[in-house]
């Protein structure tokens, strides 16, 4: 899908949500479509994708049909989309998906710690990126050079909280530390990516109808 198609998909969902027809929270994004399209060019069908509570666009780019994603959103499953046949999973728990992705990444190496083929891609928001559990997982994946790509999606906010002002550490500085660690350990499989974006939507919903 193109960035324009992704944007249109979210606008369609926003319109339906504002009519009160979705009886569950939806987490829309905007402004990151082009980044995601580029990242997903490197993600193959057999690769695993682990995502957050805002996973519509990730699921679409993993190959799940817009009709199916839309149906699941309408049925109230936006916050934890799961598509096992596409190796796609998400979680609504901050940082919670990271160790699950890590366990799968471990399984994707053979007994000699060589990669068998597929990789994991684990998407995490900026506040999740600051949590202890995510940092434990990233460090372990670096230390064992597991086939996992961590993608930090930084919109500067956790719900409405300013991540950097609250944590006192710049998210990009934390990313740089871990990127340097990956270089120092000469990892061939483990990688980390980062992009910044601004979204016009609030954390949940559209600002109209009801807030979660």
């Amino acid at each position: 899908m193109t960035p324009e198609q992704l944007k249109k998909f979210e606008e369609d969902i926003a319109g339906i949500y504002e009519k009160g027809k979705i009886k569950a929270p939806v987490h829309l994004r905007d402004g990151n479509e082009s980044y995601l399209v580029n990242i997903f060019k490197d993600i193959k069908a057999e690769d695993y994708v682990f995502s957050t509570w805002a996973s519509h666009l990730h699921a679409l780019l993993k190959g799940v049909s817009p009709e199916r994603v839309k149906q699941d959103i309408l049925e109230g499953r936006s916050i934890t989309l799961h598509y096992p046949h596409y190796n796609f999973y998400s979680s609504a728990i901050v940082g919670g998906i990271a160790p699950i992705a890590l366990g799968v990444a471990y399984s994707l190496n053979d007994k000699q710690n060589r990669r068998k083929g597929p990789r994991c891609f684990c998407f995490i928001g900026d506040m999740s990126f600051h949590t202890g559990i995510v940092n434990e997982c990233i460090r372990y994946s670096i230390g064992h050079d597991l086939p996992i790509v961590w993608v930090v999606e930084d919109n500067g906010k956790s719900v409405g909280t300013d991540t950097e002002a609250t944590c006192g550490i710049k998210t990009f500085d934390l990313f740089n530390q871990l990127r340097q660690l990956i270089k120092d350990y000469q990892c061939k499989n483990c990688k980390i990516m980062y992009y910044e974006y601004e979204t016009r939507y609030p954390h949940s919903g559209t600002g109209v109808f009801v807030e979660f």
Partner: protein
Amino acid sequence: MNYKEEVQKGMDLLAEQSNSIFIGQAVEYKGTALTHQVKNFPSSKLLELPVAEEMQAGFALGLALEGYLPISLYPRMNFIILGMNQIINHLDKWKAMSCGMSNPKVIMKAVVGSRYPLDPGHQHQANYTQAFKSMVKNIDVLELICPAQIMPAYQKAIDSDRSILIAEFGDLY
């Protein structure tokens, strides 16, 4: 029938499963009573992890997604509560979250710290089995207080498609 011997038979049964893997602290290195229960298993079946219980609990779920039968070992009941985020919020709800399409199974074992011959104090003696039972819907929680319960519990852990938490008692080892 001896508690410790029955536990070892149960662990041996788990080790016989072709896809089983024992993970946690002190499985490859000496350190706890659980070390003795896995010391004769092939090294390929043992994975020492950092002391990071939440990571371990989620890691086990990930292993199960890829076809492993993870046996996630927690040397103390008060350690496993650090992994409850993963156990309650993910493992217990994963099948429902995926509309029944994905059902990873994890076998967990936690030990209530022994009081004799050394009293470890308030923290290590805790038994949260009842609290676990009240918080999960899709994980079986079995408290093993006598030898006759042990082999049926381990057999159930293998045969069932549900995850299971086995609580044992250090004083009975």
